[in-house]
């Protein structure tokens, strides 16, 4: 088991590569899900006419992040 984690002496290169891939891919997936849920919530509120708060018009939705 220790030999597995040691990666033949290259642990300091192999594990960061895998770790970073996991972090970046899961991070991007979570951000995509969160963005989708937020837009779905906003769309439903607006379509139901319940969102009474007036918001700034004519803005690129991207800059609201």
């Amino acid at each position, binding site marked *: 088991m220790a030999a597995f984690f040691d*990666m*033949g*002496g*290259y642990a300091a*290169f*192999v594990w*960061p*590569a*895998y770790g*970073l*891939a996991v972090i*970046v*891919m899961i991070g*991007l*997936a979570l951000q*995509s*899900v969160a*963005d*989708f849920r937020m*837009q*779905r919530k*906003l*769309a439903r509120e*607006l*379509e139901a006419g319940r969102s009474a708060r*007036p*918001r700034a*018009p*004519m*803005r*690129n*939705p*991207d*800059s609201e992040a």
Partner: protein
Amino acid sequence: MAGMSELTASQRFQAFANPARFMALSDRLLPLSAVVTALLLAAGLYLSLFASPADYQQGETVRIMYIHVPSAWLAMFGYMVMAGASVVALVFRHPLADIAAKSAAPIGAAFTFLALVTGSLWGRPMWGTWWVWDARLTSMLILFFLYLGYMALWATIEEPVRAGRAAAVLALVGSINVPIIHYSVVWWNTLHQPASVFRIDGPAIATSMLMPLLIMALGFTLFFVTLLLLRMRAEILRRRVRVLRLARTER
């Protein structure tokens, strides 16, 4: 009511292009593609970390390949998706093409980042350097900046139609970089090794390493497709929200 089979190919294409249809179709497709992605990535991780041999020259560092190579492929694949969708957006004014191009960019940028960093982590023990300004590495770095520039254009131009047109032109101009990346290891002297999978004479890599690589690459590709669908759904909703808000303020 005519079934899909009675429509011509072009009508079917148009029907698929309709954002409402896309929403219905992607809603059904997403759970399936997410599950397949998870299974492939789990199998790929098992194969690349446990069930594959160390390399006789590179030792255990060869395991970085199973992350690095699929990342680099997807970095280029993502750009081709983005540039291809940009052509369709510019020429045919297709309602979904714009959305697809915009949604592909962050995923491609993430994979380009991963390819660059894992390459650096592999280069340090094998080449003795984290970075070298040679053709392959430099053209990959340019690809990363192209992605960032593309996303910055979308973020800075307020009106989606104008933003989309400017971004599409940037994506097309930048697409010259994709063949440069691919052939960089052939055209210039470089530390980077030449292609070992997509070769005219077939893959020059042992099956015990090719299998984990291909499973991982398939997993990465499905990850890309799944996130692309999800991000396109979010983008369609974002535009609907924008239109609804504009309509609200006009009253």
